[in-house]
């Protein structure tokens, strides 16, 4: 655009010194072109409406599909999205690279949340220079999500550590109650399953690693107490580890209770699936965690 502007100025000078009326026609055309290039995208961009629909769950660092619906005058825009987290630190985290889309259109955009938390709004950075591509206009739209997106921490693969029973018992190795274990069912091995649970006999017969799911006659319960107070980086690592522990616990067949702090205060509750654990961990904030159930074996993080 600068080049075109400079050429226009040069043409004015040439027209004034040579008397060529055509140069003034060209200059007027250039002014008209720059005017159209500047006005058109400005007028269309402000009439573009954006609607976003996010899935309920996501995992930090893993791509997810965000449904984007653009309506308004027919044009071409580029956009990028940033997730706005409910929890601190405030602000928006970039979640996608710049992409291009028609308006109106609807489609799926691949986004990757960069951190754990609850996303309740999305900042859409719209840019438009159509149709001539000479002057770019930018408009940022904050779109509230209809339902929050819970971004779980990425799970750090973990085996259940040696835990203690009850408060203060985590320094003692629990008594192995192998004599009381009874097999509830068997299933295929998945990475992370404890080696001790491998059912070697069935594995040999099926020619496929098979593990036992145990029925604890006493209803074994693990309480993972996650305290996110302190260094933010360390806290995120702890959350990832908590996710790994939850998965490991659920895989091994024990009940997992997650003790965290949420915006509403300390929360203690059992999680039935990795997804449920992810949601709980997504909502976890720095604060005093909930109190573990008395009968639970407690894993404290940190």
């Amino acid at each position, binding site marked *: 655009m600068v*080049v*075109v502007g400079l*050429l226009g100025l040069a*043409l*004015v000078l*040439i*027209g*004034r*010194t*040579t*008397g*060529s*009326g*055509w*140069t*003034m*026609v*060209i*200059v*007027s*055309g250039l*002014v*008209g*072109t720059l*005017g*159209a290039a500047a*006005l*058109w995208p400005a007028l269309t961009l402000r009439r573009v409406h954006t609607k976003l629909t996010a899935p309920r769950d996501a995992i930090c660092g893993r791509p997810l599909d965000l449904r*984007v619906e653009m*309506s308004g*005058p*027919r044009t*071409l825009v*580029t956009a990028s999205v940033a997730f706005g987290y409910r929890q601190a630190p405030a602000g928006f985290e970039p979640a996608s*690279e*710049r*992409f*291009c*889309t*028609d308006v*109106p*259109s*609807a*489609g*799926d*955009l*691949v986004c990757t949340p960069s951190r754990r938390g609850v996303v309740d709004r999305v900042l859409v950075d719209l840019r438009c*220079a*159509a*149709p*001539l*591509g*000479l002057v770019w206009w930018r408009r940022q739209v904050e779109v509230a999500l209809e339902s929050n997106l819970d971004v779980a921490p990425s799970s750090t693969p973990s085996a259940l550590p040696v835990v203690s029973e009850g408060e203060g018992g985590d320094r003692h190795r629990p008594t192995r109650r192998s004599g009381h274990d009874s097999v509830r069912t068997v299933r295929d091995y998945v990475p992370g399953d404890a080696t001790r649970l491998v059912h070697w006999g069935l594995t040999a017969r099926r020619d496929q690693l098979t593990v036992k799911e145990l029925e604890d006659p006493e209803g074994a319960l693990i309480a993972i107490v996650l305290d996110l107070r302190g260094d933010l980086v360390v806290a995120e690592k702890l959350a990832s580890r908590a996710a790994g522990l939850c998965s490991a616990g659920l895989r091994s067949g024990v009940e997992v209770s997650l003790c965290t702090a949420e915006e509403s205060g300390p929360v203690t509750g059992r999680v039935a699936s990795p997804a449920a654990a992810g949601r709980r961990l997504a909502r976890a904030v720095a604060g005093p965690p909930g109190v573990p159930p008395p009968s639970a074996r407690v894993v404290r993080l940190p």
Partner: protein
Amino acid sequence: MSAFDRIREANTRRSTEDSVPLRVAVTVAVVAAATATLRQGVGGPALAVGMMIGIPGAMVFSHVTRYREGFLLKVLLALGILAAFGRFLADVAGLGTGVASDVQIPLAELFLWTQLLHSFDVPARRDLQYSLVSSLVLIGVAGVLSITMSYGLHLIVWAVAATVALVLSHRSELADLPQVATRSRHASRPARLFRPVAATLVTVVILGAVAFSFVPPAGTSRALAFPSVLPRVAGAVPVPGGLSNPTLGENDPSRRNEDGSFDPGGGPGQSFGYFGFTEELDTSVRGRPDNTLVMRVRSAQADFWRGQTFDTWDGRHWTLSDDRVRDIKSDTLPLRIPATPTDTGGWEGNQLVQTYYLERPGPNLIFAAYTPDQVYFADRQLFQMTDGTLRAGVELGPDTVYTVISQRPPATPDILRQASTGPAQIPAPVASRYLQLPKGMPQRIADLARRVTAGEVNSYDKVRALERWMGANTEYTLDIPPLSRGADAVDQYLFEDQQGFCEQIGSALVVMLRSLGVPARLAVGYASGLRNPFTGMYEVRASDAHAWAEVWFPGVGWQGFDPTAKVPLAGDPGPQTAAAGLAQYLDLSLPSLPEGAGSAVFGVALVGGAVGLVVWVVLASGRRRALSRRRWVTRYLDRVEAAGRARGRPRSPAQSGPAYIRELGRSVLPDARFAGIAELVEREVFGALPAGEKEQDAADQTLEDASARWPAG
């Protein structure tokens, strides 16, 4: 890394451009610009053919080889450009004139060669954009050189192609970005081009017209270019310093003998010939020069394009009393024109540069606004008459171009009033030559002049009073009765016919002024003609041939007056904007319409265009909203039909959309909510009641839920 490797790396090709339509659009723009330049007399036929074939060929070559590194090609192209530049320098050195305008053609040729060579190496989008910008430079060069309206066609083609190229370039740029995986039906179609380009062009034209209303008109107040071209066929006039006018046929003054007779054998007179361009002007003969375009004049302001003057009046004929000539010759341009005794001169800062482009053969007079000071004339020789007018030593035919720089007296009514003085201020040479009157002149002419100017104290107001009187009491016409033998043409015009043409009106003004003691003479030449606001040229037609009075003012010099031609005084400002020039052009081009109609036409067109654009935007917006409403229903029905088909229950041709939804809700997708959705769709399609956003979402959700619950197959 060696220097060679660094150069090589710096010249590594960027991301290539695969869009063929974009490349075609740029090629069309470049070819249009090159053609426009070639049409202005740049280069010969070989260069024209080379460009017309070479540029598209080079673009094709560039597209085919876009993925090759092409370092050797770059080296060859660089050498080619150096060769073209060397040729340009040689051409310029060969000119040896030191005149900037002479460089224009070689420079345009250099641009053309550069454009051609560059076309061989445009693999990337950025390269194509450079090509587009350089084509803008080329079309600008052509615009500077152009003096005709035919350039407008090239400009239109270039503008359309450049707009298409810009649109495609932008789309191509965006195509490099990740795309949203769209679900909408229309988004998967190839992007339409016509509507955005047409809408953009309409917007550009309207905004450009608004800009045209404010940009200053092209002018030559600070001219850098002083073109002068003499066709090779120009032959010398029979008598150096003599007058030649072959358009008069057998009355060509160069064929006149000592005894006043003409040599036989002259060709036929031309319809655009003017009897005033001769050595003796018979005021009883006008002739009817037609509307042929005889020349174009590039000038910042309108003026009389004066050819010659007459000082001696015998009651019927005008002649020049002193036909001595001064030979003005120089090896370098410009030719400096010395002032004559009646030229006061010495006015600074009121230069008027005029370039004359002859379209038809004509007299060997060098037309110029008063007072010519410098002349760029390719023959490098001129002859100056004692009255200051100029003649060429060669015949002047079509395609002759010359430039005159005139020093114009700063004439405004106030200055002329102050310059008017009594007989004591008139030098003897001026008085003896320009107060001459025939002995037998009827006294009633002088009496009338005195009566009309009674009460006017200065020469300027006397001139204006006489003009007003003639405007009110006489009529301009070419149809007058023949002048009887021995009759005084001025007396006949003023008292008998009260009708006449410019020669008689001008003569009457001169004679009456002389009778009042005001020095005056009759000048002939052309009125300024219409200024074409696009080319910036005054289009002078044969019918603009004119005679008018020149009045001498002490300290100022000669100033032209004529009640029949709308030529402003030298000190009057011309149009201040290009649009004002266009309005003036329309006003003068549409004589059947009342004065000011041109401005009205331009204003109405501008306002109408703007209103039209707004209406179009509003209507298009409303239509889009309606389409957007329909789009959900259409999309929803498509999805319902797809779900039904997948479950072995396609929609029958006779079945309405709502009925089909109800049927699916009862059969393959059992869900009571579909009954409500059918009503919603019915309302939307047939009742024109748009479904709300929540209702749409609920319907979408119902279909998704039911599809998940009752999977296909």
